[in-house]
Structure formats: structure tokens, C-alpha cells
């Protein structure tokens, strides 16, 4: 840790290569385990299921020989201009000044669901059910199955993907212990503002992806893979609903034009297909 980056410019983001994604769902499963997301009694009701990393299967709408499909994994976009943050009446969701992660303070959330209504990506889900009976079962049957780093949520609050923020905390702590500075105050200050190395902080979904379709890191750091990927494959990169001005921090890569077209609405465009 010789080079210390000022963290003002840190912008955590994700690049998902849709050409590589096989739709196996490992990212989603890893996310649920990592973040103590509970399973509904009836998971067939997808309108109430809690999924931070959701997979959309989209087809090109053409008949057999030309039929193609793509899987679009959708975490929280951690928008640069989040629609959800300014609307929260109780300041239960904020955008981190360092790193730009959109946080959800579930113990402060009153459950008004205004943020759920404001988010166009359906990245926010509400706890319609009481997860407690399930946790009780966990304790009895699968003692210690819950991840101690992530607080479980209660009924009646909104939750969302946090880019595994607890892992960022752990990475910062690691940097702190590894940094050799004489003045302890200076040391603390540095660990707070300095960038963490790419390998110290990876989200659960990025780690779990067997196809290595998900890359995570600091979009502004030329040393990070996400930054390089976006540069290398500029022509293939797109974001969801860019026209709305939310400035998502999750980029997708696809070499197929029709897939890139799925990302946004195009007025009176004949190519627009709904899958």
C-alpha cells in the first residue's frame, strides 16, 4: 500500500458482460446467501419476492430460426442521480459521498414505499412478510447459517442491493491494519478516504459468477478491470434507461445490437420489441 488515492473520485460500479452470461443464477443465489435474504413461503409470487439480483430473460421476438434470447442480471443500478434518494421522507436512504453506493438504512425505514414507486428498475423490494419465523428455523436447523456481517431485515421495510457494502467495510478495515503509518490519527484518516485494492472488495455476485460475466470495481480507477473493460469495449457498452437521466453505475456489454436496443424505449421505433 504505497500509493494512496484520494477517494473523492471513487465511483463503484459494475460491468456485466451479457455475451458471457449463461443465466445460471449463481449471482442471485450468492447474493441471497451473502445478504441474509429470506425466502417467501410462496416464492412463485414474484411481485412480492425479495431479490436484490434479479434475472430477466428477454427474447428478440422473432420466429424460430432467428429466435435469440438474453439474460439480463439486474442488481441495484446505484444511480449517480438516484430517483429513490431525494424522495425518502425519513432520510432512510442516502448516496454515499465516497464511492457513491446508494445505502438503505433499514432500521430507519418507515416503509412508506415512495422509493419503490420512484425507482424504474424495480431494484427496491418491500418486506411484505415477517421473516422472523424463518430466521427462527434457521437458528434451530441450520445454526449459524446467517451471515453475521449483514443485519437481517424486519417486516415492513424496504431493502435493496448494497453492492455488498459490508465487504467494503471489511476491506477498509483490512487496509487499516496493513497500513504502516506512525501517527495513529493519520492512519485512521487514510483508511477512511483511501481507495481499497480491487481484490479486497468484490461483491458476492461478481465472485460467484462462473462465467466471469460480472466485473466489479472503481469505474474511475484506470487500474481497475471495470474501467479497462469499458474502454476496450466501448461500442458494446450500454446502461438501462439512460434517457431518464438516472446515471446508472451498472454497465452492460453486448455485441448484439438488438440486446443493446432493449435497454431503453425508442419512440415509434419498429425495432422495439417487448419480451
Amino acid at each position, binding site marked *: 500500500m504505497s500509493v494512496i488515492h484520494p477517494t473523492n473520485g471513487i465511483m463503484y460500479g459494475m460491468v456485466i458482460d451479457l455475451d458471457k452470461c449463461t443465466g445460471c443464477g449463481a449471482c442471485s443465489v450468492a447474493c441471497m446467501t451473502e445478504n441474509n435474504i429470506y425466502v417467501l413461503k410462496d416464492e412463485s*409470487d414474484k*411481485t*412480492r419476492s425479495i431479490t436484490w439480483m434479479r434475472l*430477466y430473460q*428477454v427474447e428478440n421476438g422473432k420466429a424460430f430460426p432467428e429466435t435469440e434470447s438474453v439474460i*439480463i442480471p439486474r442488481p441495484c443500478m446505484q444511480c449517480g442521480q438516484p*430517483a429513490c434518494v*431525494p*424522495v*425518502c*421522507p*425519513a*432520510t*432512510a436512504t442516502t448516496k454515499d459521498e465516497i464511492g457513491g453506493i446508494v445505502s438503505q438504512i433499514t432500521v*430507519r*425505514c*418507515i*416503509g*412508506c*414505499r*415512495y422509493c*419503490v*414507486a*420512484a*425507482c*424504474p*428498475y*424495480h431494484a*427496491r*423490494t*418491500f*418486506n*411484505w*412478510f*415477517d421473516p422472523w419465523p424463518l430466521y427462527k428455523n434457521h437458528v434451530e436447523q441450520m445454526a449459524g447459517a446467517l451471515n453475521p456481517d449483514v443485519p437481517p431485515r*424486519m*417486516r*415492513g*421495510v*424496504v431493502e435493496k442491493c448494497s453492492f455488498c457494502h459490508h465487504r467494503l467495510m471489511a476491506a477498509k478495515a483490512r487496509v487499516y491494519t496493513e497500513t504502516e503509518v506512525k501517527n495513529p490519527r493519520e492512519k485512521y484518516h487514510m483508511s477512511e478516504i483511501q481507495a481499497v485494492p480491487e481484490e479486497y472488495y468484490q461483491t458476492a455476485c461478481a465472485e460467484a459468477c462462473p462465467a466471469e460475466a460480472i466485473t466489479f470495481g472503481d469505474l474511475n480507477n484506470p487500474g481497475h478491470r471495470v474501467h479497462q473493460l469499458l474502454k476496450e469495449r466501448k461500442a458494446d457498452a450500454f446502461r*438501462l*434507461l439512460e*434517457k*431518464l*437521466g*438516472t446515471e446508472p453505475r451498472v454497465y452492460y456489454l453486448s455485441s448484439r445490437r438488438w440486446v443493446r436496443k*432493449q*435497454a*431503453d*424505449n*425508442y*419512440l*415509434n421505433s419498429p425495432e*422495439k*420489441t*417487448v*419480451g
Partner: protein
Amino acid sequence: MNLDAKLIPDGVQRTSTLNFGLTLLPWLGLLGFGLIGALLCFGLGLNQTAMNDYFAFGLWIVFDLAVIALGAGAFFTGFLLYIIGRKELKSIINLAVIIGFICYSAAVVMLLIDIGQPLRGWFIFWHANVHSMLTEVSFCITVYLMVLIIEYIPIILENRKLNQVREFHFFAHNLHEVMFIFAAVGTFLSFFHQGSLGGMFGVMFARPFAARPMFFIWPTTFALFIMSAIAAGPCFTLLIATLLEKIGRKKLVRAEAKQTLANIAGKLLAVYIFFKIIDTIAWIYGPAQNAGLALGDFYRDGPYGQWLLFLELGLMGILPAILLNIPAARRNTLWLTLACLLTTSGIVLNRFVMVVVTLAIPVLPFEQFIGYLPSWQEWAISLAVIGYGGLIISLSYRYLPVFPDEKALNA
């Protein structure tokens, strides 16, 4: 003479105690039904509703927005009477205040049931986010509800029996003397929360159906909601007054008071509809087009079809605006009632569209269209508002001098 008869205002005719008790039963039934729904929601959580992550808001928010708009008659009548000085409105102000009180108190209770963690409701005040329209709404309706209680207290204290207590008599009298201050405060607060309720939807820039052009921090819906509320509020007050007159088979409100309200509501409605049409066009060629969507993309078949737009702006907008602005039509009870009914329905429809249709339309191109039908628990709590209103109005009508001109009009 029993106690019940002693409580009835002097010189007016009221039904027998038994009859009155029987008329309360349906209202109490609705309230009880709502109570069951509320207990289920508090006890088991919001899975008792039919809402989901697509329909984060549902019937309750539609009802909230609707009753708050219809309750606007209280502040606007107060404004016209105490600030502008339209003295003829004394004939209807008490009813307007009571309706306002019912609407706002019901809205606050419904909001409390609607949030997932009711015990944390006060976090809005403690951790207030000043950028949120909902924070502004919460602050304003809480304070305005207090104003409405202050306005309601003197009416209660004027009950024949209560007014015999010297202290009550003078307290009520003194409150009346300073009522213009509360009318002014109420007007100020109402302008802001009615606007912020509209603003809540206009600021959702990532929801193209609701997003509206901004004027500094205010979207156009801010102004439209104020205008529609002050047009629909007096109409609703007139409707309830007419309903009470029909049920009681007597005159309760002076014709001048009704005409003043109808006249002003008609002019405001015309202005509102004019701006609403401009706003709709500005929205189609502004935020909607920028989001890559055309008008046809927003309205689907069936209950979410384009007919909603024409019904709201035409039949329930332009038509009553014309009716209310023709003096001859306004003076005819039937036409007046029809116009008021259309106006209030139009505003309720507008609130429904802003809430439900906004959420129904998928924004992601590959997202599904999902329908929503409220559960019986949601209906129970919403209908309880009607039961609650019926109960408060019944009790007030029987025991309080709500209509100061009733005696003179039926002499």
C-alpha cells in the same frame, strides 16, 4: 325531556332518538369492518393487502389523495369568508370545517396503516429529509389537522348544553374572534400540502407517466393539484350539503352561499382544466418524449385505456366547468348537483390515474404489465373512512348548530 333532546340545538327539528340510533348502525358497521382490516394489517403486516413491489401504492393512497383534495373545501371556504370577506359563506362554513376535519383525520390514520412500520411514523419528523415532497406533506397535514381541530372546537362548544358552561361559552366566542388567523394559517398550509401531494408524483423523474416539467423545485403537478383541490373541495361541500338537505327534507344552507361557492369553484375548475390540458400536451412532448415514449405507450387496453384521459378531461372536466359557469344551470339544483358530482369524480379519477396508472406502466422495455385489484382488507379500511365521515356528520348535525341559518330558512 330526556338528555338527548336537551342536547339538540334550540328550535330545530330532529328525528327521534331511536331513529337516530338506527341511522348510525350502517356507519358503525363500516367502521367496525374497517377496524378488522386495520387490526389484520397491524398484526400480520401489509401482506394483507393486494399491493406488491410493482404497486407500492394502492387503493389507500388513492383514497388519501382523494379525501385530502375533497377536504380542501374547509380551508378555501374559510379563506373566502375570513380573508376575502364573503359573509354569505357563514351559512356553510361549519359544514366545510367538519368535512375538512373528517377528511384530514381519516387521511392521517390511513397513512399510518399504510406504512410498513407504523411505530416509526415519527421518524419523518425526527429524521426529516427536506428534499422529499412526502416530508412536506406529512408536516403540513399534521399541522393543518391541528388547525382543523381548533376550528372544530368552537362548533362543538356551541352545543346547547356545553354552551351553558360559562368558560366554554367564552372560549368558543374568543376562538371565533381570532378565527381569521387560523383561516390564514390553514390557507397557507393547505396551498403547500395540496401542492406537495401533486409534487410527489411530478418529481418522480424516472417514472415518465408522472414526471412533469420543473419550475425550480416544483413540478407542474404542484400547481395543478392546488387548483384542482380548490375547485373540487367546495363542490364536495356543496354535494354533502345537498345530500343533507335531501335526507332531512328541509333547507339548511342559504342559496347565496351555494351560488358563491359554485360560481368560484366553476371559474377555478375552468382555469384548472385549461392548464391541465396544456400540461398534458407539455408532458407528451416533454418528459414522455424524452423518455422515448409516446402517448399510446402509456395507456393499455381495458381499465387502463386512453378513455381515462378523455373521461377525466372531458366528461368530468370541461363539461362541469361549462355547467358551473352558466348562471341558469348553476341555480338549478339538479344541474348544480350533477356538475358537482362530475367535478369531484373527475378529481378522484385524476388522483387514481396519478397513483395507479403511474405504477402500472412498466418503464423497463422488457418489464411486464401487472394488474392490481385491492384486497377486501384494503376496501374495508377505505370504506371505514365513509363510515367515519357519516358518523361524525350525523352526530354533528344532530347535536351541534352546524347550520346557523337552518332556523330562519325553515321558519
